[in-house]
């Protein structure tokens, strides 16, 4: 440990002066509870780092921004052979996942684990991202398929856009598919 005096102080570089054009676009295509968080958590982190951030919601990912559905996303381990109880070295039998009531139970457990980490529920997470300046877009084809209009989505959603629109807006961006 040195005690060299430095005056003036070392000032952290917050990158304010850098003319950065870093931009990240997430494509959120899934609506299962465990698969909606990756894009939301990373988008939130990117915004906190001052990076221009967009999320394009498509297919089942549309549920994340649909008023009626966003609170009620579910989790199942059906088809997920990695599923094990928290901290336990045992795999849950796939056959059990299909039993009546199992999705409800698994969802409840996962929601509790997420809450224990003080991570917000989906509606709050989406709101937080919108408040932090995240730009949210709904997919036109999915909206047409599901019979949804802009009014069906939460406030932060800017517009329903086509695949072509997304390709245009993501020019020069890092695109991450989840």
């Amino acid at each position, binding site marked *: 440990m*040195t005690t060299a005096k430095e005056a003036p102080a*070392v*000032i952290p570089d917050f990158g304010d002066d850098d003319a950065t054009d870093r931009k990240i676009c997430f494509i959120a295509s899934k609506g299962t509870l465990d698969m909606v968080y990756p894009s939301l958590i990373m988008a939130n*982190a990117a915004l*906190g780092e001052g990076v221009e951030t967009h999320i394009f919601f498509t297919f089942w990912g549309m549920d994340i921004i649909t008023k009626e559905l966003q609170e009620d996303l579910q989790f199942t381990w059906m088809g997920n052979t990695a599923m094990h109880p928290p901290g336990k070295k045992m795999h849950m039998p796939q056959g059990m996942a299909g039993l009546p009531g199992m999705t409800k139970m698994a969802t409840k457990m996962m929601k509790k684990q997420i809450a224990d980490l003080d991570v917000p529920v989906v509606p709050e997470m989406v709101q937080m991202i919108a408040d932090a*300046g995240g730009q949210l877009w709904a997919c036109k084809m999915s909206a047409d398929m599901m019979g949804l209009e802009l009014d069906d989505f939460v406030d932060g959603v800017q517009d329903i856009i086509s695949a072509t629109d997304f390709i245009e807006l993501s020019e020069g961006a890092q695109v991450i598919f989840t």
Partner: protein
Amino acid sequence: MPVATIAGADVAIDAEGFMTDSEQWTEEVGVFLAEQIGVELSERHWEVIRFVREDYKAQGETPTLRRVSTIGGVPTKELFQLFPKKPAKKMSYVAGVPKPKGCV
């Protein structure tokens, strides 16, 4: 570990310039640090800084932006206005506490 002289006092900082001992912080130090990163402190900034410091003391870790908004009562939108671009890092820098470690 480098030591910087801030507002007439010796203050331990890490390689990036963040204070490593929050006990060495005074309001004068806070004003100086804010000046370094181009933030002019309003009463609202001070509310955030006080909350960050109190929460750090009570919890032993720096509050995340979400905690500052839900428990500290300063909305996310406003935090981005008060400490532009990288609010979590900037507010902890000015408050003399480590950068937040939480993901959310």
